[in-house]
């Protein structure tokens, strides 16, 4: 299972890449593996505001439905429309091509509350026991 060192994570299995005020968000390798074949993705609208913890999207595999939560508060500046056509990219490149949304952060302090790669690895190890 991949947990890239340059990202931050949530306990709901989203990953976050923070560059200045913009956060790119996707779901983790662990999440996509647990879901199995992803066949449908719902994303927020560009311009939509969201608070940390809000439902920001939905990822569905053949057998399961999983909410994607906003890991941080802010405004959606861009969504990965290509995912709607090829949701299976989430299974093959969850940290790359299959990013889900970019959010302009309204509260940079929230970044510090995200899990570090080490913390996330420990959390996943515990959860999969």
């Amino acid at each position, binding site marked *: 299972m991949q947990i890239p060192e340059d990202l931050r994570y949530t306990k709901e299995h989203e990953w976050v890449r923070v560059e200045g005020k913009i956060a790119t968000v996707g779901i983790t390798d662990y999440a996509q593996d647990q879901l199995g074949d992803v*066949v449908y993705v719902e994303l927020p609208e560009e311009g939509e505001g969201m608070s940390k913890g809000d439902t920001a999207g939905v990822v*569905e595999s053949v*057998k399961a439905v999983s909410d994607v939560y906003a890991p941080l508060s802010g405004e959606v500046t861009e969504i990965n429309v290509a995912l709607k056509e090829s949701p299976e990219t989430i299974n093959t490149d969850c940290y790359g091509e299959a990013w889900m949304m970019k959010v302009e952060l309204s509260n940079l302090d929230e970044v510090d509350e995200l899990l570090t790669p080490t913390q996330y690895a420990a959390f996943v190890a515990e959860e999969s026991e």
Partner: protein
Amino acid sequence: MKTPLYHHHLQLNGRMVEFAGWEMPVQYSGVVAEHLAVRQRAGLFDVSHMGEFSFAGPQALALLQYLTTNDVARLAPGQAHYSLILNEQGGIVDDIIVYRQGPEQFLMVVNAGNLEKDWHWVLAHNTNHADVVNRSRETALLALQGPAAAAILQPLTEISLADLRRFHCAEAHIGSVAVTIARTGYTGSPGFELFCRSADAGTLWQTLLEVGGAHGLMPCGLAARDTLRVEMAYPLHGHEITDKTTPFETRLDWVVKMEKGDFFGREALLKQRAAGINRTLVGLQMVDPGIPRDGYTVLVGGKPIGFVTSGTMSPLLKKGIALAMMGIQHSAVGTKVSVDIRGKERQAEIVATPFVTPAT
């Protein structure tokens, strides 16, 4: 509980889940790949968790005629049919397959989740003392399904599979393993179900995977079994059919033979037929994006008129499909409906089933 193939599933990296008290593989390589393998080539399923009851002796036929809705007397030896066990209210206790193996020898295959209930039901109603034996633990069941199934199986057996018609079965061998080969299955693609002794299941499984490899055979889990049967609109007990739904409400009239004489549940069905049927199962296909799931509400003009009993993304159509129980006045093919998908009304349409026509 574990089937005799449990360790084979682990070796193949099967993702194991609890199902009806059994530890079963839900998938190996992925649901979509396994589903498409069955539609385009072949897939191999372990369905040993299902139950097998044998009925024998001079009272066997009469007992089966009384317990089940289809006309068992019409079965010739070597023939099988789909059937139902009903309760007194006409509700469906289980859906089953009855095989006639000889003049006075029958095998009933029941759902894993209903095995105990069904067995008690059989014992409770066996007043004329037919010879009944629960063979579930000693029997393994493998399903080899897909257009390449016959090509995989034929070189392994002495019988001519071309002569084995749909819903017929024959005693045969696969190598040294004694099997009953039945041209039956739950996927809609052509194929076979193979009964063998539990002790032989590993050998049979291994042989089929080895020989089938060249034909693109894949081991398949319960998830693909479910998406395949939904594409065919085959009912699943606990979803489309339950102890509270009758065959007339679930489009299973064709396995109810009222003219054969008395059977359990017949009186209730006669009453229901006289009173009229007010709900029925339909096939739904999404017009909007989204996947309808079990329990979602179906609406017409904003008013709830039914609910989804099984739904999935069809791997073949790449669209959301579902079976739904609907008020009968809204059940016509072509009716525009919507499905409440997590609070949003999404457009769908009632379509004819099966949803797909598999390759033969």
